[in-house]
């Protein structure tokens, strides 16, 4: 979830008044945001935004826009959007797209701003917006990358090209070396971070102006020449490239609205595609593509549990900055330019809820009857736990992930049957446990100072490979138990197993079992009819040695699911 820093002074001036921390916290609820901290020296307020579908809130301007409206200030009108029926003139501000980009990074959108000098606050906010939008919403620049340039240095039309990475070169931002596109990927920090997005293509996306001045290598880095925006600049060119046109247009709308809120004039740019897009081959940005959405008033009432009047619904939506009308039991919403999160009528309902205020909804206790019930496995598990405790065992609880060393090597086992994680955080958490035994032995290994005898058990889940299932794995409820003492041995365990099986009401028989974890001839398998449900015996001294255990130990494990059901489920 994104966290942003807003400049307190700029923010409060936008809000028209100052807020105490407490007031701010209360107000932030309307944006599903939380106060995350403050830096008084820098005049910065840190805010965490919880809604990943509302990237419009991830900037000082966007957040202020939402909260201002919630406080009753009339929302601004954005009159620079072209749409299906109305297209703004762009003079010569155009971007021409190379047809070869279709399968590389097919889309670009852009617009210009002017009419005001960029100050520090704008610059900081613009950098932050770029980062947050491209990182969270743009999936670390793979779906959306954004560049900002000084437009007075650009000769239009801008060219969005596919370039040979070995033949083209330029000086990247904050560098002094002229590097080929391929070298930029290898030799610059940004290249190493984002280069993988384009590295596998034969040609790289590349932005220049008509006089072949380099703008950038999207989505990696700007050129040092016109890609360095500074305080005092008055004319900016903003472009976004990526793979999803809707998301790009939406993101461009957010940035344009933010800058408009700061007092800039937005100048549309025409994008000329050599291939078809959803919005044709010529697209003037900023562009409004949203369809009106509607919700039945009765549905909203039913979901919110209140009798909702149309006026009330409209007022609630207005407070959220959403313009809506009522017609014959339906509420129709004009989706704001900067939003793209109305997928279903329930999304309107939530805005009505927040706009109306949580305090206006009183809780109702559920009044239907439903029978409470545990799973049969849980009930069986509880019986087994009671018996183990009666036998003097202490219940333990363990992690379910571990290393090959603990689960396999120290246990004298092979890798067969284990579920391995493809992307482990570390080799310490690389395998899912297929048995409780390693955890029990680890306990014994770290507990030699605890008074003996040690009798411990755990009932928990294990998982292992199983070809007969759809997933190729099986998860089971297992009972594992360990008895460590100077005289611990097969006979005591045998007695314990016998008591357990008697009180669980299962007839069983034992057979000698060969298992490398146990001493040969002192290990038994437990059979119920023709199903082997478990194993127990004296732990192989080699295994004890592997764990650094110097106390004789007996150990066993029973598949409670097999024992309960008598068969695989």
């Amino acid at each position, binding site marked *: 979830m994104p966290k942003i820093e807003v400049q307190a002074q700029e923010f409060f001036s936008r809000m028209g008044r100052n807020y105490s921390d407490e007031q701010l916290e209360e107000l932030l609820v309307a944006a599903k945001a939380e106060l995350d901290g403050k830096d008084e020296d820098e005049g910065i307020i840190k805010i965490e935004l919880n809604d990943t579908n509302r990237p419009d809130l991830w900037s000082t301007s966007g957040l202020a826009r939402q909260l201002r409206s919630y406080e009753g200030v009339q929302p601004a009108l954005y009159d620079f959007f072209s749409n299906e029926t109305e297209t703004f003139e762009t003079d010569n501000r155009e971007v021409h797209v190379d047809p070869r980009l279709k399968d590389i990074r097919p889309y670009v959108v852009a617009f210009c701003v002017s009419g005001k000098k960029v100050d520090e606050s704008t610059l900081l906010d613009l950098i932050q917006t770029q980062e947050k939008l491209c990182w969270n919403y743009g999936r670390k620049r793979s779906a959306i990358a954004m560049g900002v340039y000084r437009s007075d240095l650009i000769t239009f039309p801008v060219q969005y090209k596919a370039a040979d990475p070995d033949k083209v070169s330029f000086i990247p931002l904050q560098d002094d070396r002229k590097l080929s596109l391929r070298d930029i990927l290898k030799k610059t920090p940004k290249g190493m971070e984002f280069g993988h997005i384009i590295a596998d293509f034969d040609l790289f996306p590349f932005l220049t102006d008509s006089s072949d001045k380099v703008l950038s290598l999207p989505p990696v880095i700007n050129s040092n020449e016109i890609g360095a925006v500074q305080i005092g600049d008055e004319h900016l060119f903003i472009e976004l490239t990526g793979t*999803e046109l809707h998301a790009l247009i939406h993101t461009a709308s957010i940035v344009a609205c933010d800058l408009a809120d700061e007092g800039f004039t937005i100048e549309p740019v025409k994008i000329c595609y050599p291939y078809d897009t959803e919005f044709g081959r010529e697209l003037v940005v900023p562009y409004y593509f949203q369809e009106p959405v509607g919700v039945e008033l009765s549905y909203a009432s039913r979901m919110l549990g209140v009798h909702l009047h149309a006026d009330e619904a409209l007022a609630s939506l207005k407070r959220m900055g959403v313009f809506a009308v009522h017609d014959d039991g339906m509420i129709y919403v004009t989706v704001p330019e900067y939003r793209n999160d109305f997928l279903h009528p329930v999304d309107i309902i939530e805005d009505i809820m927040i706009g109306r205020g949580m305090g206006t909804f009183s809780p109702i*206790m559920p009044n239907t009857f439903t029978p409470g019930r545990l799973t049969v496995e849980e009930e069986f598990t509880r019986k087994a736990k009671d018996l183990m405790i009666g036998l003097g065992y202490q219940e333990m609880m363990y992690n379910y992930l571990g290393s090959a060393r603990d689960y396999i090597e120290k246990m004298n086992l092979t890798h067969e049957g284990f579920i391995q994680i493809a992307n482990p955080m570390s080799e310490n958490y690389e395998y899912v446990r297929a048995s409780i035994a390693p955890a029990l032995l680890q306990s014994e290994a770290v507990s030699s100072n605890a008074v003996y005898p040690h009798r411990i058990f755990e009932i928990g889940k294990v998982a292992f490979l199983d070809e007969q299932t759809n997933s190729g794995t099986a998860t089971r409820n297992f009972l594992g138990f360990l008895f460590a003492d100077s005289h611990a041995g097969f006979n005591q365990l045998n007695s314990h197993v016998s008591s357990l099986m008697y009180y669980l009401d299962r007839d069983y028989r034992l057979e000698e079992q060969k298992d490398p974890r146990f001493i040969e001839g002192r290990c038994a398998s437990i059979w119920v009819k023709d199903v082997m449900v478990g194993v127990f015996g004296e732990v192989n001294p080699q295994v004890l040695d592997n764990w650094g255990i110097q106390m004789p130990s007996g150990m066993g494990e029973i598949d409670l699911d097999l024992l309960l059901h008598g068969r695989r489920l």
Partner: protein
Amino acid sequence: MDIDVKNLHPLEVKVLRQVTRDDEITPEGMIESLGLKIGQCNQAFSWLEGKGCIIEDARHTKVCYELTELGRAFAERGLPSERMYLLVREMTERGGYLTLPDVAEALGLENRDVGSAFGMLSKQGVLSMDADKRIKIAQEKLPEEILTAKELLLQGLQGVIWEDQLSDPQKQVMRSHSKKRGASGVPFKMVEREEVSYRLTEVGERYRERLLEGGITGEEFGELTQEMLLRGSWKQGTFRPYQVSSPPNRVLLGRRNPYNAYLTWVKDKLTSLGFEEFDGPLVETEFWNGDALFMPQFHSARDIHDVYYLKNPSHAREIEQPYLDQVASAHENGWNTGSRGWGYSFDRNFTRRQILRSQGTVMSAKTLPRAHVPGRYFGILRCFRYDQVDATHGADFYQTEGIVLGNEVNLRTLLGLLKMFAEEVAGAEEVRYVPGYFPFTEPSIEVHIKHPKLGWFELGGSGIFRPEVSKALGVDVPVLAWGLGVDRMALMHLGLNDLRELFTPDIERVRLRRGR
């Protein structure tokens, strides 16, 4: 100072009763008067000294003698000189004679020992030897020295011999038959013992008075034995009262793990509130873990739940129909849920990819196709998160999740449910609701509670499943989905502040841990 005679061991009682302020208290005295063993005396004295009943008076070094192995053999079979004399006399009486080698052979002794015994006896004029090396009796009686040595040997069998109890001739004999070190060749080992004598203190005097007043003799019954019951001998005396406040011995008992006991309590609470438990496998598919919850396959919302992938098998064979088609359509164009969908092409290969369950909501979704209306379900499920392990993040942890299905489900019944959880499960004093965000619910609500100990904190998240979730899984009524942050309360309950402690392998820590 408190005088509690229940603190006294029967040995202490006996000693105290035996002595007065004027007595010098020594082991010898107690051995003699009470028939105690030396070890018992030492124990009783050290306990009494600890209680301040007696105080050290003086220390003397005393010499005593103990039989050696050799001495024990002499005592049982006789001294070599004595045996030699008796043998020679017997042979002489029968008219025969013996030489030294004959004696050695007959008595099974070394020639050297026989020689030195003869030397000693002939020097005393008891034996002599003729020209043919035959041994002759020269005197009819054994010398005094040998008789004395024999006495001492027999006395030594009864126990140590104190030097100050010997007569002068005895002392002389003892000295020639003993050594302080390297005593294996002589019958006695000389030992120097430091002996401490004590005097009764004022405190001891008060104890003593109390004992005499109470008629406590130290002969009271200790344990009630089976034999006493069989014979009825318990009727013949009284029982020694125990110090009931003395610290007990430790017992190692079988016991539930308190964290698990807490989770069990939560389960019982939820079943008492009408919820039915669900459970499922640790290995899940992207379909159930994300897609069925309407989280777009390539959206950043998916990053919230960074997951562990399975190396092999990397994909499940198939996804259950018709849910796969319905969920896929819901993502692409909303299907018939009333949604416009996410508007991308659903990846049916990606959806089969296998992962370790990252959120309990998976099982809420999986329960929908078989759920009853009205219905309430819950599960406490182990989940896995791609996180660095530290005090607040575990590689695996429990989540408590559930759903409520019904025609009456709406925002206000959701608030009611959360209020019920807040009060019943968390013991909340105040409840506050704020709008939240979850990819699979709309509206979404977070519930914050004021806990009597922890203050305000977020108890859990909830919401009404998006129709893209519930309808695509075959449910037409609204469904509340909720999750509770039980671990936070569990830590408080157990007095811990590190999540890793919940799964500690340390046996002693688990043994000592208890719930509040």
